[in-house]
């Protein structure tokens, strides 16, 4: 098993060295980003097709759902502000439930 472990270590080192050298080259970046660009174009085309299909089916598109979500988000934020105002008012009226620790701790004496 010791041989196996050493072999795994060696293989990993070699794979990392070769892989990072390859990934650091501009050719690799070009190929990788080219592939990403193709993927993005395909995704964009799928979005457009889906938006048309949803529109034909009289259903909301992703952008419309996002707009709705944004409005909900603002309502949530407003609710959060109201909630914190209410809790601030409440906390002035009621005593804290658990005693807070004293903030008086000092460093332990250094060992000589």
């Amino acid at each position, binding site marked *: 098993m010791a041989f196996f472990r050493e072999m795994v270590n060696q293989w990993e080192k070699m794979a990392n060295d070769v892989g990072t050298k390859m990934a650091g*080259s501009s050719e690799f970046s070009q190929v990788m980003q080219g592939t990403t660009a193709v993927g*993005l174009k395909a995704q964009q085309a799928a979005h457009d097709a889906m938006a048309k299909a949803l529109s034909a089916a009289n259903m909301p598109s992703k952008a419309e759902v*996002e707009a709705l979500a944004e409005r909900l988000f603002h309502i949530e934020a407003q609710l959060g502000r109201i909630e914190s105002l209410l809790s601030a008012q409440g906390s002035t009226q009621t005593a804290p439930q658990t005693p807070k620790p004293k903030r008086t701790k000092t460093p332990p004496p250094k060992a000589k």
Partner: protein
Amino acid sequence: MSASDTPNPLDQARVEFERAMQRNIKGLDYFTSPAPTLGISPKDLILSKGTLRLYHYRALVDEIYRVPIMLVMATTNRGYIFDMVPGQSFVEFLLKAGYDVYMVDWEPPRAEEKHLGLEDYVLDFLPACVDKVLETSGEPDLSVIGYCFGGVLSVLWAALHPDGPMKNLVTFTTPVNFKGMPLFQAWSDQRFFDVDKLVATFGNCPPEMLYSAFDMLRPGGRFAGNLRLWDNMWNDEFVKAYRMIDRWSSDMLPLAGRYFEQTTKRLMWENAIYEGTMDVAGRPVDLGKITAPFLHVVAEHDHIVPYEASKPLVPMVGSTDKQEVILKGGHVSLVAGANAIRRLWPQIDQWLQERSL
């Protein structure tokens, strides 16, 4: 080596046989048992604002240091790296050592949060958290600890608020010279990487893209890691640690579209912090304006933020009381795991003790 040191082949064979049996039994258990529950130290959510969460951890001792600590997590990952499981939790360690601990953590930004930019994080989220920590603790100042990109955000915030309430600043593996990250540079090569197109298509940067970019830094790491897991399947401690770290590292967050675009253009392409040309919403960033006591901890074998990327941070910061500590370990093992428990945490405690009065 004496004859008594030489392992008996029969004993060795017996050990290997037992381990092989254990691998089969525990391997089955591994695939059928749920992932470990992480981040369970008792805490209260005290601020929630879109992607932002601010937690206050409940004290574990009766007497604490005066100055509260605010941990700032990187925007790419979850904050439970600081709070894995009892006994292996930085948060628990700090609480037991007598600190009042808060953590800035992030939820995945929603589609409608794609417009969030660096200025939202640095000039809105962090100041709101600081105000809340001061209000909750009743103290006029706080210590800030930022991890990786959480450190970048902390440094930007600190530089733009030189008269603010920051008493101490600690950063872990925080890059400032982005040209010192060659593989990320290659991944985001300006000649081929159309960040505008990506953001226009996806809104937010998908976590899968970030995950593959991180994976690319160690192409052999995942396969070798799986082989090591199989080899150590008999060892409960190894499997537990592996599952925790594996779960955390694959639990990546998307990045808000504009924020991703800004970090790519300003930091990766222009290297603006290092070049001294960085601004946030038009406000110039000068790290020399940070004068609070400063500690920067870097990992010797950090493949994500190599030393070249983080080395200039200490010289750039204006503090007179400043220190860099280089510890053994990698980007993750520096802050969590056995190495962190032995090396990092006690050093942080020692550094903070006298500065938290």
